[in-house]
């Protein structure tokens, strides 16, 4: 074994440089409502969600399980299982056209072409009986109609673009022969192989180790810098938000309760839920005192009241009738939107002129 190794102590400034956000809006979701019919009643999984995504921007959608963040992403992919789910209302405008109005056949081209999805668990996202080149090649042949040697070249090229070493060899491997990080890269390669304008990453790193997670996040940033892709990052981890996102939308019970650029969210959160989420995470940089904890459980979505869904868990003092008003999402300062409710915004009085309740 040769031990004369190159000294590579070079530290990476990793793609986390200045943001590459452009002005052009590539995806605009307006008043999206997705319901599920269950035996307990209608579940409003997504209840009137609005957001825009710009070119080269990373939008973090943060929330607990059941907050509707994954259903939002499935709605954008039009993959909500129907029945029981239906997209009741709203518009999803991707590159200028409303994809909710497209036929299923047209949607097949959009899905994986203009917008793709990376899921949490790479082992279930990949088919164990096909090798890597089959699976990456499937997406490419559907969207770009390539065959034979050109297809193979394109497969190897997209594996190289996600920094898989020895891509020609790895392309012939089966998923079980790859490590977790490599598998997730293959899923990423499938996602970006057709140069989509929007990439939805649904907790892609939760099952990975810290070092592999860091490498994967760096890779996504690099790909974004190269191709101006807009990324929607669905996560419950504020660490990922701090590292990756330009803008954040915090979801609770199917609605956005606060959205702003990432620094505003961390430095000046207004909604009690956002505040609580940030302060309930222990810090690595210093010894944390006792953690602030959010009491109670996330609500059951089938018996949601019309009012402020967060009120039962809020620490603030409020009158019961204040919680019954359905709060509006208003712009309290430029590009900082808060769902204004007496029950869950401490500075309500300061902004009360923006609402009529």
């Amino acid at each position: 074994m040769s031990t004369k190794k190159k000294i590579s102590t070079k530290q990476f400034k990793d793609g986390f440089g200045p943001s590459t956000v452009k002005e052009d809006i590539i995806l605009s979701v307006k008043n999206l409502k997705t319901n599920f019919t269950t035996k307990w009643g209608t579940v409003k999984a997504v209840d009137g969600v609005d957001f825009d995504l710009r070119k080269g921007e990373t939008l973090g959608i943060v929330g607990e399980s059941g907050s509707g963040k994954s259903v939002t992403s499935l709605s954008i992919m039009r993959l909500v299982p129907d029945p029981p789910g239906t997209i009741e209302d709203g518009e999803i405008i991707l590159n200028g056209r409303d994809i909710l109005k497209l036929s299923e056949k047209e949607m097949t081209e959009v899905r994986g072409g203009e917008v793709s999805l990376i899921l949490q668990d790479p082992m279930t996202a990949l088919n164990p009986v096909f090798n890597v080149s089959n699976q990456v090649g499937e997406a490419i042949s559907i969207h770009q109609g390539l065959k034979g040697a050109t297809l193979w070249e394109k497969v190897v090229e997209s594996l190289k673009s996600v920094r898989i070493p020895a891509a020609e060899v790895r392309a012939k491997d089966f998923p079980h022969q790859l490590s977790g990080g490599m598998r997730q890269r293959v899923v990423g390669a499938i996602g970006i192989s057709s140069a989509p304008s929007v990439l939805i990453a649904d907790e892609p790193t939760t099952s990975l180790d810290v070092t592999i997670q860091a490498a994967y996040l760096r890779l996504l940033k690099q790909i974004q810098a190269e191709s101006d892709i807009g990324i929607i990052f669905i996560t419950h981890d504020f660490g990922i938000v701090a590292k990756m996102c330009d803008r954040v939308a915090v979801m609770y019970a199917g609605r956005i309760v606060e959205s702003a650029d990432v620094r505003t969210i961390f430095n000046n959160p207004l909604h009690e839920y956002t505040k609580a989420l940030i302060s309930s995470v222990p810090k690595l940089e210093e010894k944390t005192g006792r953690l602030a904890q959010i009491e109670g459980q996330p609500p059951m979505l089938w018996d949601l009241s019309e009012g402020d869904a967060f009120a039962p868990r809020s620490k603030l003092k409020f009158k019961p009738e204040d919680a019954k008003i359905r709060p509006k999402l208003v712009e309290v300062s430029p590009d900082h939107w808060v769902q204004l409710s007496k029950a869950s915004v401490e500075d309500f009085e300061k902004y009360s002129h923006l609402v009529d309740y």
Partner: protein
Amino acid sequence: MTSKTKNSSVPYAPGCNSNSDNSILQVRNLRKWFNVKSAFRFAGRDLFGTTSWLKAVDDVSFDIEYGKTFGLVGESGCGKTTTGKLILQLEKLSTDGSVDAGNIFFKGEDLKNLSDAGKKEYRTSIQAVFQDPWSSLNPRMRVRDVIGEPLKIATKMTRSQINSRVSEVLEEVGLHSYQSNLFPHEFSGGQRQRIGIARALALQPELIILDEPVSALDVSIRAQIMNLLVDLQKEHNLAYILIAHNLATVRYMCHQMAVMYLGVIQEMGDTEAIFNDPMHIYTNALISAALPSHPDIEREEIILPGEVVSPIDPPSGDVFMTRTPLEVDEKHEYFSTRPNLVEKSKNHWVIDTPWSLATKENRVKMASLELD
């Protein structure tokens, strides 16, 4: 302790300071080698190919003090869970026979020499809470039976005594006693983890092994569970072994910690000492890869060359030498023999080889941010 005969003394090991009076558990030179046979077998015989050894845990020693939390950190495959299983006796210590598989000392007494009563005390004093509250509770058992089962097996309590103990521990973990009639699927993830903790508490243990207790839970629930664990520790003077890969959780919960790589402890000591001055390159790399708590914190990542090496037939010298960014001297004694932990500052031990200590370039900068 029933048999307090002090005939066995716990041997010294580098990194282990405390004497057996304030340690509930001391492990010495713990080894778990798995026999990995090659694939070419016919009629139960190896045709060609050789037998290799997967060294999941290799010469691990540490002390757990009463009422304190000890953290085990490392990437998947580093042997942290296997260490926990060895202590729980879910795995047997084993080597290829050429070296000793190590010892576990419970309150100063070697586990091998314990009487039957002592072994029983050991098994009731050490309990576990697992990562996934969905798969670690039997879906066909009511909560009362889930929590009551260890009591039924290990004690002579009557049914009504068991029921009242179950109600007691349920209240203690923040659930209601009437919920003992429900099934696990009727609870949320956080509540299920509380049930898991209640089951571990039922026998009044002194040490609980927490294997990633919060990583499967929602963020807003994690703080609840971590605070609950801290409160229970204070109340009952519990010792914990926290197996985790989230360094922020470890810093929050642990008094002492050890960083493992390829089955070997690389750095060990007081948690704050390690976080304030991480010495080993691997520790620095792990910390640098952890996620920041604020967007303005930019840690430059220290990237180790290569990937995690397979633990099958690891190097006979320092296991870290295949990953170090520094030059490895082939003539150095630690190229072929295992280095020991060295105490660099008070209660801060690290593997000291010419290529394992962080130099100026690969030391993580823990920029803490003063927020207004």
